[in-house]
């Protein structure tokens, strides 16, 4: 059996419980015994005092009748001399109440009246009580004994019985009780100790064993060989630990198997992850390539657009050139060609060719991406975009209405911003061409200041964006145009340019029978 911590809280509780119970019982018993013994001592004292009083009465009755005071005095002296427990004796004669004989151990005297506390004890019956006597200036057991014979009350014998013996007996009693109490307490402590140990020891053993089990020591056994509930508990506990041990072993085995499986699965997963990474990388690579392709496509589209626009720009000078050439041919047939004419044709041709060349420069500059951030005028950037698409819009009978605050500037990439405006205008144009057959095709460009922001709003009256796709229009490759006409990259690229490159926002909504695209960017406070 292992040593256990005996003075546990539980042990203390049991010990205190038993000790205090015994202590209370002993104290209660001692209290009852003391009270009983005290009463017995009083009874003994009363009995002795009454015996003496009776003896005095017997001897002095004649003297009381004959008023023989000297006899009474001598007899009382004799009685007191023979009984040192009598502190005083008083004879009060009913017929001579002013001749009260008081005899003490030291002297005797005649009293004319009794002290009040003694007088109050006089009655038809025997009275006794502990009083503080003024006669002997100490506490005495006073007995008042009425002297009655031949049916006549002749007086009283009062006896002051010494409390010394009573107090000594009481003192002895208290001391004895104290010694008994101490002895009983000692025994009770020992008894409580052994009983507590007897009760608590098995429980502490089980507790200790339970603690061992809780920290994993499943081979812990409790050795309690009693046949009581604790013995049964011990058996059950041992059985439980055996079961736990078996379960633990099974669990360990299962864990080990599981760990192996987990390792296998982890390995498989790692493998899968590696494959997945590869696949993702492949997909990302594919996506990147697709995006590159898209961008390429976009560029191609933009180039096509540019070429288309150049073509539009060039159409009028080319026609003019054609007319110049036709006029030159006619002038040659009509022999109108002279030097002046030739110079005029050359000048006009050079002017037309210069205009076409300027067109190419303009487009080249427009599509050349900016490499550094700069402050630019919104109005000028929008005008560049409008100039590029202006002819196309005019050809499609689209009217542009501009409400632009010319003073507003922003910080960013002006070329890319122009591309965004061009893209939005192009989309508006396509929508108007597709959806608005009326003669009232409008694109309204509003540029205003809202707090510290610039709000660029490009609206059309092409019927708006269908609600089922309005949330998807900024997704890459999303397009509603016929195949070959749209790449689905324009709005996506525009949103990227505004939100990522220029720290603004681009939103779309339907209003006034059309779509509105809102660009919000921080205003530049710098003056150009």
């Amino acid at each position, binding site marked *: 059996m292992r040593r256990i911590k005996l003075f546990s809280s539980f042990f203390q509780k049991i010990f205190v419980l038993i000790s205090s119970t015994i202590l209370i019982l002993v104290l209660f018993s001692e209290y009852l015994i003391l009270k009983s013994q005290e009463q017995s001592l009083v009874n003994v004292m009363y009995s002795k005092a009454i015996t003496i009083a009776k003896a005095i009465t017997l001897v002095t009755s004649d003297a009381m009748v004959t008023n023989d005071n000297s006899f009474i005095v*001598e007899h009382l002296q004799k009685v007191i001399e023979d009984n040192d427990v009598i502190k005083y004796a008083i004879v009060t004669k009913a017929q001579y109440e002013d001749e009260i004989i008081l005899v003490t151990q030291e002297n005797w*005297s005649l009293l004319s009246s009794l002290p009040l506390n003694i007088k109050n004890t006089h009655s038809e019956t025997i009275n006794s009580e502990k009083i503080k006597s003024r006669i002997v200036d100490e506490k005495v057991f006073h007995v008042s004994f009425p002297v009655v014979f031949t049916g006549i009350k002749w007086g009283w014998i009062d006896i002051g019985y010494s409390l010394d013996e009573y107090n000594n007996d009481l003192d002895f009693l208290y001391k004895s009780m104290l010694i008994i109490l101490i002895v009983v307490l000692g025994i009770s402590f020992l008894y409580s100790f052994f009983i507590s140990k007897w009760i608590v020891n098995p429980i502490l053993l089980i507790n200790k064993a339970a603690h061992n089990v809780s920290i994993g020591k499943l081979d812990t056994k409790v050795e309690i060989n009693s046949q009581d509930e604790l013995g049964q508990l011990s058996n059950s506990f041992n059985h439980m630990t055996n079961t736990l041990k078996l379960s633990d072993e099974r669990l360990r085995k299962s864990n080990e198997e599981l760990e192996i499986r987990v390792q296998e699965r982890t390995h498989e997963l790692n493998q899968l992850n590696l494959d997945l990474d590869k696949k993702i990388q492949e997909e990302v690579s594919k996506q990147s390539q697709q995006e590159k392709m898209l961008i390429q496509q976009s560029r191609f589209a933009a180039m096509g657009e540019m070429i288309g626009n150049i073509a539009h720009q060039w159409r009028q000078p080319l026609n003019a050139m054609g007319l110049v050439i036709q006029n030159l041919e006619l002038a040659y047939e009509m022999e109108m060609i002279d030097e002046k004419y030739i110079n005029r044709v050359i000048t006009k041709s050079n002017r037309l060719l210069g205009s076409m060349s300027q067109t190419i420069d303009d487009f080249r500059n427009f599509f050349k991406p900016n490499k550094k951030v700069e402050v630019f005028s919104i109005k000028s950037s929008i005008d560049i975009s409008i100039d590029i698409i202006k002819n196309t819009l005019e050809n499609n009978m689209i009217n542009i209405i501009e409400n632009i605050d010319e003073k507003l500037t922003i910080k960013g990439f002006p070329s890319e911003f122009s591309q965004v405006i061009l893209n939005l205008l192009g989309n508006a144009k396509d929508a108007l061409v597709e959806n608005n057959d009326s003669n009232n095709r409008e694109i309204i460009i509003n540029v205003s200041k809202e707090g510290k922001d610039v709000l660029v709003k490009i609206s059309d009256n092409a019927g708006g964006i269908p609600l089922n796709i309005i949330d998807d229009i900024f997704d890459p490759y999303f397009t509603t145009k016929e195949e070959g006409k749209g790449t689905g990259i324009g709005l996506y690229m525009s949103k990227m340019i505004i939100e990522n490159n220029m720290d603004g926002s681009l939103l779309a909504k339907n209003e006034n029978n059309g779509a509105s695209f809102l660009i919000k960017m921080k205003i530049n406070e710098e003056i150009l």
Partner: protein
Amino acid sequence: MRNHIFSIFRIMLIILLPLQLLADDSSKLSGKMGYLIDGLSSVKYKDARIAFDLWKIEVTKNNDIDVSIKYLDTEKEIIKGYKNSEFEYISINPFFYLKNSKLIDSLTQTCSITLEGDKEFEQYVLLVKDKNIKTLKDLRGKKIGIENDDYLAKIFLEYESLKKLSKNLKKSRYEIVKTKKKSTAILNTYFGKIDACVVPVSTYNLVQELNPSVSKKLRVLSVSKEIFMPLITFFHKDANKQFVDILINEINILPTTSQGQNILNLFKIKGVKEIECKKLEPLKTFYKKYELLKSSKK
């Protein structure tokens, strides 16, 4: 050889046996006391017997002596016994000594007296309560309390009466009321039961101690000389001196032991003191005067 051994044994027996017998007789002292019950005064006969028994035990415990006591009822018996050397010592009331002083003195080697008070010899006082009693003449017809066996008190009273009253004794006669105890006589006077009392001063002092108001109410009318004692013990001149010394020594040490105190308490005395017999002369003188007065005023 065998005869020689017998001879030696017989010689030793003849020499040692008488020595042994002689030694027994000579080492054991003994004495007989005569105690006169009459005049025991306030000592009860029963108490006296107990006290003597205790005293015998004490004396024989300390000494290799034999002590015996004979209680006698009459004066004649004890005087006869003392005269016949029947008793080594006798204890009697002084009154009987005064009556037989010549004889006793002639037979006595030493004597001792009992002490009731602090003084060696006692005085008698005549106490009265009534303020009208101013002289002994005023005691005529009055009741005077005297302890039952206190013969000396009676003699003192008569002596005083004879000395101061008229020749006509009958006219000045008072009534003697005998009391069991001396103190009772005082108390009876105090409570007015009797008119006067004759008691030893030691008794009166004791009563005063117990109740000081007694002296306020009682008045001393007459006081005797310091010549009285309650009891006298006479040691016979034939008594063994060593035996007498042992007894006197034992008597002297009585107050020093607890048992001795008990014995003295039973005798109601404070102690016993050996005195020279000539110290009894004033008492004898007083008695002679009394006798003379009595005979002169017959």
